[in-house]
């Protein structure tokens, strides 16, 4: 059955006229892929590496259910997600205009490029200590780190997007009577959108990485804390539950962005 659905989704184009169930049918191979992952995990954990340090999926699932019932999993997820959301949103809100300015004005580019080129090579995890010293162990330091993890990628890809706009797109708009402001809103911005979204997509992955590292060092709650305390008390199921949650959340966030990219990139133009 899954074989048949794969063929259907391969032929049908992910376009406007596709029936509503098409995206669900298209998702079947993904579910199948996940299923294989769990089956292999199960085989590896129950038959090949029998160890308390490598729990099979069912025992992790049981732990996860337990943690959902007592509310601790949701509390950890929401703590991490809120941090990511705030930091990511701020990082994008700052990064996109800066990237647009860099891409459009060579003076701004020359002024800011030393910054972006310098901090790009100082990883967020290296900034954890600094963040804690500056902003304490509260929310401030985590949000700062996620902004830091997000902003440079978004700036770079936005600026790259601006410079890659075909000059004829802008020239055409000029001959069609568009004002500079209209050119920015109706040409430059939509033409850059796929690049902005690609930058956001990469930045989101970076945010996930950073939030876990930051929470391991200094936090009361969150998925990183779950992993860290799990290590202290040898709660291996708890660690794996956190890993599972991270993977699933990241996957969902990434799907969302891919959808956005395809929507803005002209129906079938591959961008990312």
């Amino acid at each position, binding site marked *: 059955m899954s074989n048949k659905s794969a063929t259907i989704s391969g032929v049908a184009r992910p376009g406007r006229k596709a029936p509503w169930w098409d995206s669900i049918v298209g998702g079947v191979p993904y579910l199948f892929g996940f299923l294989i992952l769990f089956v292999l995990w199960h085989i590896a954990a129950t038959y090949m590496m029998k160890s308390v340090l490598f729990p099979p999926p069912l025992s992790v699932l049981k732990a996860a259910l337990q943690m959902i019932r007592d509310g601790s999993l949701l509390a950890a997820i929401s703590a991490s997600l809120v941090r990511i959301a705030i930091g990511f949103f701020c990082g994008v809100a700052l990064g996109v205009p800066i990237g647009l300015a860099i891409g459009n004005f060579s003076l701004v580019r020359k002024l800011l490029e030393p910054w972006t080129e310098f901090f790009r090579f100082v990883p967020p995890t290296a900034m954890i200590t600094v963040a804690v010293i500056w902003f304490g162990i509260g929310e401030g330091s985590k949000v700062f780190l996620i902004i830091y993890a997000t902003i440079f990628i978004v700036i770079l890809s936005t600026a790259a997007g601006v410079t890659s706009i*075909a000059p*004829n797109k802008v020239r055409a708009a000029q001959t*069609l*009577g568009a004002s500079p402001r209209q050119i920015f809103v109706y040409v430059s911005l*939509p033409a850059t959108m796929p690049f902005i979204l690609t930058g956001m997509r990469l930045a989101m992955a970076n945010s996930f990485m950073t939030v876990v590292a930051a929470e391991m060092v200094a936090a009361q709650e969150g998925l990183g804390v779950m992993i860290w305390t799990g290590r202290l008390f040898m709660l291996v199921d708890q660690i794996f539950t956190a890993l599972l949650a991270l993977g699933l959340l990241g996957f969902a966030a990434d799907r969302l962005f891919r959808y956005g990219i395809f929507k803005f990139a002209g129906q079938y133009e591959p961008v990312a």
Partner: protein
Amino acid sequence: MIEFKNVGKTYSSKRGGDFVAVDNFDLTIQRGQFFCLLGPSGCGKSTVMSMLAGFEAETAGQILFAGRPISGASKERGVVFQGDDSLYTWLSAVENIEFGLKMGGMPAAERRTRAMQWLHLVGLRGQQDKYPTELSGGMKQRIQIARALANEPQTLLMDEPFGALDAQTRGSMQRELRRIWAAAETTVLFITHDIDEAIVLGTHVGVMTAGPRGTLKTVVPIEIEGDRDRSDPRYGIYYEQIHSAIREEVERASKSGV
């Protein structure tokens, strides 16, 4: 009326040494003419168009449009570009065509009606919701033409618009363009390197000398009314006349080039 008065364009290179693309270019195009500018590749014909469009400034002489010097691009001079990279990939065919009307502040319903008329006129009936990436090269070129015409410019500048099309599509597009030009009373400057295309389309054919320092060699008025027939003896005479003019230039270009 378009007047080129001793127009020159010099590009200065970073390694030193200037490149003179166009030199002493003199030409007057009257209102309503269909002027085809013909020349070997590298003769500067695209540079001429680019200056008239307002994308680049002349470095010598003067270009007058309706008696006034040109300062930047304007919607008085619509442009159809050589490739398809000027189309907006995030907009559908009809949205591309109505772009200029939208910029001018025309209400949505009215501009959609107009854009649909142009869509039909260039033979894209039923393709209005397709995105440029879903359309063939010929269809994309039609959107470009419709987009430029929907804005009703006084002058239409076209830079080898049919260069990338197959012979079949090219022929039908040429006929369409003649028809639209006759109906809309616009002035057309049409850049091409195809002698046949120039004679079939133009009321006047200008031949440029080989580059660098490209300039206008001669202008041949095509005095055939209505549709051009390739079996018409006058077509053959014009072809021979223009062909010999351009062959000299191609030979000169190949001698000085390599």
